[in-house]
C-alpha cells in the first residue's frame, strides 16, 4: 500500500474509531481485552483496506470487519490479565442524568445484553447504532425478515427481564 493510502486509512480510522470502540465494549469485559480487541480489529481493517472498493460507505464496511473480527477471528491474547470487573468499566450509566428507576433499568438492560450470545449482541449493537434491517441482515448474512423477527424476540426477552 502506498503512503498516501496509509495516510487516508489512518485518517478514516481515527475519525470513525468510535465504531471499533463500541464493538469492543460489546464483546469485552475489561480494559486490557478492550485494547487487545481494538488492536486486532485495526489490523484486520488495515489488511482488508486494499479490497475496500467503496461500494458501501466506509463506516458500513468498518462495522462489518469489526464485528467479524470480534465474533469470528479474535483470539484473546494469552498475555491479557483482566484488570477491572465488567460492571465497573463497560457501560457506565451516569446517575445524575436519570431518576433511580431509569438508572436501575438501564443498568439491568446493559447487564442483560452482556449475557446474550455473540450473534445476538451483534444484532443489538447494530440496532442501537440505528442501522436498518437491510444493513443488519447484509452484515450478518441472514434474511431481512428473520433479522427483524430475531430482534423482536430479543426486545421481548429484555422487556420480560425488566418486568420480572
Amino acid at each position, binding site marked *: 500500500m502506498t503512503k498516501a493510502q496509509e495516510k487516508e486509512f*489512518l485518517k478514516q480510522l481515527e475519525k470513525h474509531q468510535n465504531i471499533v470502540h463500541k464493538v469492543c465494549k460489546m464483546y469485552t469485559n475489561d480494559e486490557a481485552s478492550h485494547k487487545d480487541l481494538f*488492536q486486532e480489529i485495526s489490523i*484486520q481493517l488495515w489488511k482488508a483496506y486494499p479490497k475496500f472498493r467503496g461500494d458501501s460507505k466506509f463506516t458500513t464496511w468498518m462495522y*462489518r470487519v469489526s464485528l*467479524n473480527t470480534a465474533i*469470528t477471528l479474535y483470539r484473546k491474547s494469552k498475555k491479557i490479565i483482566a484488570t477491572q470487573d465488567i460492571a465497573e468499566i463497560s457501560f457506565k450509566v451516569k446517575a445524575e442524568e436519570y431518576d433511580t428507576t431509569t438508572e436501575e433499568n438501564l443498568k439491568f438492560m446493559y447487564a442483560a445484553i452482556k449475557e446474550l450470545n455473540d450473534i445476538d449482541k451483534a444484532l443489538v449493537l447494530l440496532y442501537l447504532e440505528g442501522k436498518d434491517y437491510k444493513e443488519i441482515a447484509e452484515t450478518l448474512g441472514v*434474511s431481512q425478515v428473520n433479522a427483524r423477527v430475531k430482534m423482536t424476540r430479543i426486545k421481548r426477552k429484555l422487556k420480560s427481564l425488566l418486568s420480572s
Partner: protein
Amino acid sequence: MKELELLKKDWKKQEKALPQYKIEELRQMVYKRSNSLIRTIFIISIVEFLLSCALSIWFVDDEYWQLVTHLHLKTVTQILLVVSYTITLFFIYLFYHNYKKITPQDSTRVLMKKILRTRMTVRYYIIYILISTGLSSILYFIFSLKYPMPETDLNLSGINGLIVIGVGILFIGVALLLVWIVYTLLYGILLRKLKRNYENLKKIDL
C-alpha cells in the same frame, strides 16, 4: 418499549466516555502482528503439511530402500510415493486457494463458512494421511512376515502368526487413533467459539 428508546439514547451518550487514539498510536497498532484465528489455523496447517513431508523424506533413505527391496515392494513403494506427493501438493493448493478467499469484509455467515471449509480441507488431508499410513503400514507389516529378515527367528506358524499380526495391527491402530484424538482436540478447542456462533447464526434463518 420506552426503555429500549432510552437505551438507544444512552448508548449514544456512551460515545463521550470512549477513549480516543491519535493517528500515531493507530499506526503502531496496525503494524502489530495479528493474533487471529485464521493466522493460527494457517500456521498449524503449514506445520502439519511440512511435518508430514519431512517425516516421509526422513524415512526414505538407503536403508529403507534396501528393506522394501527385500520385501518385494520396491515398485509399489515408488508408485505410492509419487501418488502421495501428488496428493499432498493438491491439498496444499486447495488449502491455499480456500485461505486466500477468506476476508473479514464478507458477511459473518459467509466468513464462517469459508473458515470451516478451509479447516475441512486440512481435516480431509489428515484423514487421508491416517488412512494411507494405516493401509501402507499393514501392507509392509504383512510382507515383513511373508519375507522375514534373515537375522530374525520368529516362529510365525499357526496361532503365533495370528497373534503377531493381531498385535501389530492393534499397535498401528492405537498409534493412529492417538494422532486423531490430539488433532481433533486441537481443532475442537480452536474452533469451539466459531462453531457455536455459526450454529446461533443458522438458527436465525430457520
